[in-house]
């Protein structure tokens, strides 16, 4: 009898160790995927330095950076030009791509989880159309919310402030009425229509130069990246991502539905608003420097889920890395395309769209219900 009991507890131990081992393996795969994306993104940055209309060799670009870091002044005019292109244009642009991609992708994960909707992205609440309106107001009408700024600074500040309007509106609504994810999405769409209609109205009366400016802003470009812009973007993105990744588990529970999360001890309403506030601030910051770059935020989280499943504790960091990688790669193409390069927002959608559909068809794992 005692032997039988011992046998049974041995069997349990064996079974548990087996499950534990395989579970550990699953976790390792998820971490590995993330590390791989991160490594590829860093390599991508390396590659993108030698990509552009101006011909600079792969190794040469590294020598230029090395020399710049070491304080070696270029001696020729050509050298000076190349130093300017690599150090002042391409390097900040590549780093910007990294962080913008990461921020948008994390925004996508959070919005999809919070809204429990695979179609949600960082712009779902009307962030992009609000930012566009803010920017257009400044570009076309010269109206800046904060007076005394240059046109480009005014555009940025306008875009940031406007893109915070939807989340503020929704937070105010939650004070009076308990909001559901569906209601939030619907009000986001309503906000989007109001703002884009206003933008279009303004554009109707814009002169052609301003129109082109406003339009290219609405597509999103990394062309305006500079060393001065980077610190803000990096700081906000890093802090935002760090806070969001700490809430991965809460996000898992939120996606299980309101009743479940309430009974598991998560304050659903507060948690939802907090997560969306974090994402809105990060997105608003990024958008105000680049314009609205679409698709990365929507697609990166899904691609990650194809590979590693839907556990947000891992999906958040993995999406950040994949989003960075995607935007760096898209920007490589954007810089080479057309006569003077294209806005990266065009490339992400143009190439990303068909690729994503191909992935959708091929995927075996069902990652949302």
């Amino acid at each position, binding site marked *: 009898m005692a032997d039988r009991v011992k046998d049974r507890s041995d069997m349990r131990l064996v079974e548990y160790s087996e499950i534990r081992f395989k*579970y550990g393996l699953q976790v390792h795969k998820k971490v590995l995927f993330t590390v791989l994306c991160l490594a590829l993104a860093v390599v991508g940055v390396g590659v993108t330095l030698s990509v552009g209309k101006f011909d600079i060799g792969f190794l040469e670009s590294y020598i230029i950076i090395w020399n710049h870091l070491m304080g070696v002044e270029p001696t020729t005019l050509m050298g000076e030009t190349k130093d300017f292109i690599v150090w002042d244009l391409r390097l900040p642009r590549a780093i910007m791509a990294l962080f913008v991609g990461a921020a948008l992708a994390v925004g996508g994960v959070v919005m999809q989880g919070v809204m429990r*909707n695979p179609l949600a992205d960082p712009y779902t609440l009307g962030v992009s159309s609000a930012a566009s309106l803010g920017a257009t107001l400044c570009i076309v009408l010269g109206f800046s919310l904060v007076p005394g700024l240059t046109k480009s600074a005014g555009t940025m500040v306008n875009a940031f402030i406007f893109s915070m309007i939807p989340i503020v509106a929704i937070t105010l609504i939650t004070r009076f009425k308990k909001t559901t994810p569906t209601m939030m999405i619907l009000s986001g769409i309503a906000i989007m229509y109001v703002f884009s209609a206003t933008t279009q109205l303004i554009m109707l009366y814009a002169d052609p130069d301003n129109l082109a400016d406003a339009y290219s802003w609405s597509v999103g470009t990394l062309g305006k990246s500079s060393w001065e812009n980077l610190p803000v973007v990096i700081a906000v993105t890093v802090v935002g991502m760090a806070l969001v990744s700490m809430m991965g588990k809460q996000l898992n529970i939120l996606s*299980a539905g*309101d009743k479940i999360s*309430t*009974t598991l*001890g998560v304050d659903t309403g507060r948690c939802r608003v907090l997560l969306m506030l974090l994402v809105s601030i990060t997105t608003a910051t990024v958008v105000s420097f680049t314009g609205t770059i679409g698709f990365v935020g929507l697609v990166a989280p899904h691609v990650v889920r194809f590979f590693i*499943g839907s*556990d947000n504790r891992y999906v958040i960091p993995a999406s950040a890395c994949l989003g960075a990688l995607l935007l760096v790669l898209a920007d490589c193409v954007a810089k080479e395309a057309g006569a003077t390069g294209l806005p990266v927002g065009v490339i992400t959608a143009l190439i990303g769209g068909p690729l994503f559909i191909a992935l959708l068809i091929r995927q075996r794992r069902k990652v949302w219900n």
Partner: protein
Amino acid sequence: MRIEIKDLGFGYSDIPVLKNINLDLNNPQFISILGPNGVGKSTLIHCLNKILSPSSGTVLVDGKEVSEYTLKDMAKKIGYVPYTSGDSFPLSVIDTVLMGRHPHSNRRSNEADLEKVYEILRKLKMTHLALRSFDELSAGQHQKVMLARGLAQEPEILLLDEPTSNLDIRHQMDVTRMLRNLSHTQGIMVIMISHDINIAARYSDSIILMKDGTVFDVGTPEEVLTEGNIMEVYGVESRIITEDGHPHIILKDNIPDEETLWDPSESSCTMPNTGCLKG
């Protein structure tokens, strides 16, 4: 453990759903809530664990008013297993059950939590599903996973909303028996909403019979499940026989005509514009 419900009322805007509910539930036991669709069974249990807040009256859990519990303390006290799963981005079975540890754990789920999850899965005989993704499972398995998640909360009180609705007869009995055993061996109060009168009668220690937002009768299965009560509450004629010491209900098909859903003797042609009246 004790749940005291005093003059509880709840309504969605102006429509009252629960009226004057008074109950005093004590000790580890297995309680079934029975009653027709829409009488407020789910609403009642939602008022016990902060999913809904009552419009009137009070609910005390262990002498403390429910509204004074924090969500986290409530989650440690009362576990909840919903009727359907709203999981929109499915996790693996282990990770889904692991969620139930949330009220107890800090940020990272630790080794002890995994062991607890394994023990629960083993008791539910579903360790072979541990690493599968939630969406690959059948409806019955979904219910067992959600049950496992409720158990992982290690609650003193477990509320279940029709936990056996998607299970075949064998699994209904298995799960219900397990819930009864759980309440007796682990000292948990288990409150389950059920539609199967016979299974509830067989395993429950107490039955709460509800009608029109009120508690119609409370007591042991023998006390509550009478031919008169079934007629009053469900409008169904029945005969109760006792076998193995448990009441069994035998249904008779003579429901009064005015209450049937579809009356074949009724002419389908009563509307003037459908054209059928002309012919």
